[in-house]
């Protein structure tokens, strides 16, 4: 049974995503904070574009940089890292319009409730990001199919 991903607008500059995972929080946290695991799901391997590099220093004050090549980089700073329950980071590739993302992992025994909130500095910044998202719709529409074929072949780190 697949767990549901719920997306809610909390205000004109915040969006919140909620999802349950069938594993204890420390494992979900691990998959989120170790680069070799992170890149397996953030950009699934069989997707045409793969990450050229994925540097993540997941601790308070640390930085990250995900590079697709051709100058397409995502980067920022970890404002707060509290294993295994909370990571807060900045998204600085958009300059001053960048959002701050907070992800929390709430341990529910065998399950983890993941809550991810993205807050933009202004509603204009939020809409700009939303507009840009439109451009990537087709790319990500293919993802569902690809994930099916990914299946059991997910490699070990």
């Amino acid at each position, binding site marked *: 049974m*697949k767990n549901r*991903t719920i997306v809610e607008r909390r205000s004109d500059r915040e969006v919140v995503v909620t999802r349950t995972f069938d594993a204890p929080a420390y494992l979900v946290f691990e998959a989120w904070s170790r680069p070799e*695991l992170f890149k397996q799901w953030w950009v699934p391997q069989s997707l045409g574009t793969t990450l050229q590099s994925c540097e993540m220093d997941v601790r308070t004050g640390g930085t990250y940089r995900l590079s697709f090549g051709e100058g397409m980089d995502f980067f920022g700073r970890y404002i707060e890292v509290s294993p295994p329950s909370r990571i807060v980071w900045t998204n600085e590739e958009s300059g001053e319009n960048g959002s701050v993302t907070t992800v929390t992992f709430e341990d529910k025994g065998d399950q983890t409730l993941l809550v991810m909130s993205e807050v933009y500095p202004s*509603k204009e910044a939020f*809409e700009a990001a939303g507009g840009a998202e439109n451009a990537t719709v087709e790319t990500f529409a293919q993802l569902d199919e690809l994930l099916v074929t990914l299946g059991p072949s997910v490699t070990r780190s």
Partner: protein
Amino acid sequence: MCYTLNRMVQYAHQSRLATSFAALSDATRRGVLEQLGRGDASITDLASRFHMSLTGMKKHVAVLEQAGLVTTEKVGRVRTCTLGLHRLDEETAWIQRYRQNWDARFEALDKVVEELKRKARVDGRKSRK
């Protein structure tokens, strides 16, 4: 890190979208839209259904109307509210895309986590650094 792949793209309906999202941020107004999705209703109907004063409901409807999510028409003494379908579709589509993107990622994350779980069992929980 979150989908600003094409940062230069400008969205044509930015301010419209903002007004709509603000309108949708209230639970009662979302309920009103849901109700109108099932059929037109007068403000009096809506007020009683949501246990609210007529004045309170008028305010909510005004916000929805301003955002273009609802249209109203006064016939005699009754003001009937109708869903502004097109605009609602635009909102829903935005949220839907965002949801799909993260849903796809989380499915992949499920698999990574599943693998970690298997490993943790095999290693008798020695797997953490």
